[in-house]
């Protein structure tokens, strides 16, 4: 805070100026986390528009749409690394995008620190479960499981 000390001092006549508040200790975070979170929301949002709309068109509209979706259809798609990557990226981006959005909403509306803390614990736990099971299924999917 060296520069605050360099601020012009008013001397003589009138009461002395109140010293500017010292360090903003409780709010000081000194990381770029919020910046990256904000950027991530924008970039993942753009990617998700493509991924999700593409996903919906393939699943619901093309080739008879929703009626053809079954175990065999999923097995066929996940035999291809391209669709595995597509679904994996969509899973992670959508989950993290949603988690970050909810984190902001909790910060906005949970008034007590305790409420804030427990809502976030719940949120992050659920996110971990979804990400873990989702990723596990995509990587370990066995098309011959029923035989």
């Amino acid at each position: 805070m060296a520069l605050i000390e360099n601020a012009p001092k008013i001397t003589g006549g009138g009461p002395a100026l109140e010293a500017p508040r010292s360090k903003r200790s409780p709010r000081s975070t000194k990381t770029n986390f919020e910046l990256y979170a904000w950027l991530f929301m924008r970039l993942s949002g753009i990617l998700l528009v493509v991924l999700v709309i593409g996903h919906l068109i393939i699943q619901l509209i093309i080739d008879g749409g929703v009626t053809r979706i079954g175990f065999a259809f999923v097995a066929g798609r996940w035999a291809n690394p391209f669709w595995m990557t597509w679904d994996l990226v969509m899973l992670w981006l959508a989950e993290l995008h949603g988690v970050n959005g909810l984190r902001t909403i909790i910060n906005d509306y949970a008034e007590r620190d305790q409420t804030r803390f427990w809502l976030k614990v719940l949120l992050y736990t659920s996110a971990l479960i979804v990400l873990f099971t989702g990723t596990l299924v995509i990587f370990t999917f066995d098309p011959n499981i029923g035989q």
Partner: protein
Amino acid sequence: MTAVIEEAASGPAPAQKPARDHTPIVITLRIRRFLPDLVGPNGEPPVPFWQDFQVEADPTERILTAMLKVKGEQDGSLTFRRSCAHGICGSDAMRINGRNRLACKTLVKDLDVTKPITIEAIKGLEVEKDLVVDMDPFFQSFKDVMPFLITSGNEPTRERLQSPEDRERFDDTTKCILCACCTTSCPVFWTDGQYFGPAAIVNAHRFIFDSRDEGAEQRLEILNEKEGVWRCRTTFNCTDACPRGIEVTKAIQEVKRALIFRRV
């Protein structure tokens, strides 16, 4: 330079300008009162209540004039701040018909006088009495962004000159009168008292983009914090509320952009 939005002036001009009607009309001011001394018989804490005042007003008069009439003639206990009464000191920000405005810049004829005009204290700051709120948290955020010129080296012996283009860069944000209309219209500020709020960011913007100032990095660092510019949800309430016509949301976005391009 100081362009203030004058919506009425920009509309198509009528062929014959009708003569201004100065016939006084009776308007109802529905004011949200809070009297801290009004403790219940069993020591219950005071509760806010709505009170109606009928007052005669010229349609071209300001709401502030009507309120002063109420205070002078009907109820001297009605409490509100006002100083210059000409829209420059920023004392009389209040929520009139649900919108943050200055009582001294709001004309009776611009409001629907067939219904009571509601007047309440600005939201998000603690009400002390009637329309007077505790402005300390607001000014603390203002102080936190260091709203003064920061330079290094020796002071020049003459003025610190700057080109008209450099001055234009932050012209919009020099218009702030610190009335708190923007900050107290911000939904993030309502729910999160730690958020710096639009007014503090506007005043940081005024120095960050000033070519003579050297403290931009420090101010950006402060606004990069958890409760800084990234809390802004771009709802534009602040821009709508500003009685000086400052494009507040745009200023906040410019600070975000400066942060991104400096740090990423």
